[in-house]
């Protein structure tokens, strides 16, 4: 049986004016377990707290109820008071007789009666309280970044600069990501490579950063502060330590039929290649699906020309195991599949391209060495049509319901760059809406319209086809003029929707991080915790969380890094003691609880139980209290009632219901 003290606060006149505090004290004295009750003017004051401490000592109290303001206000205060007096802080319950009573009721009898009932409910609950101890877990001071684009690089640099070890896992052969493929960046029109490559080099040279390129995360186990990760380092068939990046092998390779991914397959590369000149690491890689040596066992030309002896045809995939305290997902995006939009002839006509392909065409290192040419006949175009929202803001099955956010701006950029470099080219842009929120963004778009005379037409393109002149005809509607238009053009550029990178689903399920219906990773709170995943210790950086441009990505990457640093700076994590716990004798191992847990805190073990003398091995739920946040979803999903929540147990809540309804 508990020995309970009840402390009724006047809160000056805030409570005492409407609630007869003396009557409350008298009324609760006969409640089960109550052996002391007193009222006082300001319970939260130094003197009030001392009163509680003295009473705890004097009456050997095991639990206390404070009838006062909201627990959201002073629960923490009174828990500390209890701790000072030597009882467990979780043996405190608050009856909210101010916000929920004295402040809203005018009739003193009514308010007093309600205050007594609220006090009874708290007493009934504290009778069933048990001392709770917050757990502790250690923190591995190392972070893992999944994805080596600008988001991953920025997060890694920020964490590394704060003094912690960081590993970047990147599945392609170089870091840099999508930004490396861009020619210029809006709204300043500076060259992407000029601002990105120094960061890539910095990441490679940073003493705290380890790069695992051409590698993928194989498995993730563990929890916040203690992740065990297996990384598969795919065989490059080139010794990274020996290769000097001289690129002789890449020029000699006779297998040159396959597309060059870096240039969006607009030109070809050898089977042994370096993705691009500024690749980090600047090391060749052999594409075994194209290499003649792997296909026929012959060739081996690269091996012959490599003066460093770096070619290793017998290299194997390698598994690296490492422990991490925090993980940042920075898996970025890809261009969505535009082949579904066949009205634009993308699959049929080489002059219909995506915006990313245009980036490569405009880039000095691209397939046309930076000269704007039609891919069909390598001639200079006279007219270019841009089509916005290809797959974005599209509620049909083939599109994405969301706005890809970056297309309005990069299309204005493309239009402007083309008009600047080739004033003879007419540029038309078909749009649904032009969305340019952002610093200097609208000014940028207006420059395209006003200074560069880019022809913006509100309306969607219905159809594109090749006409008898060997050019393209664009059928569209001008919504503002309310008329159909037919435009003859040389090139059509599609602003295709962006979508989360392929493989993000696997990453998310490995991390038990949730994803939304569009495969974007879900944040822990859409407004207040936008860079954290609901899974503790997993953070989000860049487009994997939602469409965003480079400055936003970099900001989020920095924010994620700060969250990581904040976590790694701790030696121990104190865990919330109000966690779910299963009763092993009642658990069926049915997996219902696991399915509703937003934190992936529940797993199952085969364990021998002794059920009243009957020994058997059962599948039992196990809650990782370091991950459990105490929402209680599992307690209701559990059909047998085996799962219960400390601090808000079934019996405690039932007791409150009973007390209120008495």
């Amino acid at each position: 049986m508990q020995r309970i003290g009840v402390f009724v606060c006047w809160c000056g006149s805030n409570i005492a004016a409407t609630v007869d505090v003396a009557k409350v004290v008298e009324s609760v004295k006969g409640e089960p377990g109550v052996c002391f009750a007193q009222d006082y003017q300001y319970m939260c004051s130094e003197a009030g707290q001392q009163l509680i401490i003295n009473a705890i000592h004097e009456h050997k109290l095991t639990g206390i109820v404070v009838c006062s303001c909201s627990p959201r206000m002073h629960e923490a205060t009174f828990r500390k008071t209890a701790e000072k007096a030597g009882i467990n802080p979780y043996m405190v319950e608050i009856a909210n007789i101010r916000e929920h009573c004295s402040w809203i009721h005018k009739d003193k009898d009514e308010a007093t009666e309600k205050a007594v009932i609220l006090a009874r409910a708290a007493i009934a609950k504290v009778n069933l309280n048990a001392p709770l101890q917050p757990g502790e877990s250690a923190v591995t001071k190392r972070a893992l970044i999944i994805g080596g684009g600008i988001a991953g690089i920025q997060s890694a640099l920020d964490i590394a600069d704060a003094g912690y070890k960081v590993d970047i896992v990147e599945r392609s052969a170089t870091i840099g990501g999508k930004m490396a493929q861009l020619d210029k960046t809006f709204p300043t029109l500076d060259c992407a490579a000029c601002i990105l490559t120094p960061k890539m080099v910095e990441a490679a040279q940073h003493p705290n950063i380890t790069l695992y390129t051409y590698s993928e995360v194989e498995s993730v186990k563990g929890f916040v502060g203690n992740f065990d990760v297996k990384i598969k380092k795919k065989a490059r068939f080139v010794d990274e330590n020996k290769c000097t990046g001289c690129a002789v092998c890449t020029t000699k390779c006779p297998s040159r039929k396959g597309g060059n991914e870096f240039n969006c397959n607009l030109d070809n590369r050898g089977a042994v290649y370096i993705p691009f000149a500024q690749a980090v690491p600047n090391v060749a890689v052999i594409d075994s699906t194209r290499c003649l040596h792997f296909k026929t066992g012959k060739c081996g030309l690269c091996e012959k020309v490599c003066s460093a002896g770096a070619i290793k045809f017998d290299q194997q995939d390698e598994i690296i195991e490492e422990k991490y305290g925090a993980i940042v997902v920075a898996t970025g995006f890809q261009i969505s599949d535009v082949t579904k939009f066949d009205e634009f002839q993308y699959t049929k006509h080489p002059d219909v391209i995506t915006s990313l392909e245009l980036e490569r065409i405009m880039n000095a290192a691209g397939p046309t060495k930076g000269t704007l040419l039609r891919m069909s006949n390598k001639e200079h175009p006279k007219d270019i049509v841009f089509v916005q929202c290809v797959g974005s803001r599209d509620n049909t099955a083939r599109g994405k319901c969301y706005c890809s956010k970056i297309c309005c701006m990069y299309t204005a950029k493309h239009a402007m760059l083309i008009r600047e470099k080739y004033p003879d080219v007419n540029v038309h842009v078909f749009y649904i809406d032009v969305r340019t929120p952002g610093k200097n963004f609208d000014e940028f778009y207006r420059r395209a319209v006003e200074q560069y005379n880019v022809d913006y037409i509100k309306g969607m393109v219905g159809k594109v086809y090749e006409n008898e002149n060997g050019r393209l005809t664009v059928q569209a509607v001008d919504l503002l003029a309310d008329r159909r238009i037919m435009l003859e053009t040389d090139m059509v550029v599609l602003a295709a929707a962006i979508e989360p990178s392929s493989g993000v689903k696997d990453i998310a399920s490995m991390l038990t991080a949730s994803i939304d219906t569009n495969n974007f990773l879900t944040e822990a709170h859409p407004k207040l915790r936008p860079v954290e995943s609901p899974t503790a210790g997993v953070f989000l950086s860049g487009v994997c969380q939602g469409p965003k441009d480079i400055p936003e990505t970099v900001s989020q990457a920095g924010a994620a890094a700060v969250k990581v640093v904040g976590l790694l700076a701790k030696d121990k994590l104190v865990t919330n003691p109000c966690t779910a716990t299963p009763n092993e004798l009642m658990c069926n191992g049915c997996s219902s609880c696991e399915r509703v847990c937003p934190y992936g805190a529940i797993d199952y073990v085969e364990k021998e139980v002794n059920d009243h003398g009957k020994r058997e091995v059962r599948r039992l739920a196990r809650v990782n209290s370091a991950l459990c946040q105490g929402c209680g979803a599992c307690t209701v999903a559990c059909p047998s009632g085996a799962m219960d929540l400390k601090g808000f147990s079934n019996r405690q809540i039932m007791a409150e219901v009973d007390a209120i309804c008495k």
Partner: protein
Amino acid sequence: MQVNENAKEWKPLIVAFCCNWCSYAGADLAGTSRLSYPADVKIIRVPCSCRVNPMFILKAFEKGADGVIMCGCHPGDCHYSTGNYYARRRMTLLFSMLDYLGIDRKRTRVEWVSAAEGQKFSLVMNDFAKTITELGENVKLGDIRCKK
């Protein structure tokens, strides 16, 4: 059911389950803003609406509650990200079942009240208390022994 000794008029008993992060804070705000609602409403704090077990609601009815209302964060704003989505399904099905058994559907309600919606909290409780008062005493789903 409670009997007000002075007036001897019947007063309903209403149990409100409020999630700690939104609705309980909304109720606090109603208090801070002095927005009144009947004292018949008694609030029980739970961490999340997904902690509300249908058994708690039935238990409240058994013990004499005349109405039970559950309040949680608006869908999409759950502190635990998904709790109220599960609660929404559970309560929809439970209430539908109670209705199917012929228990006045108006005696059960779910409202989403954010921490900023003190006004809404007060309006909801006033409205719910009015509804329950009009319905009168709950006799269909209760333990007769609890009715003194």
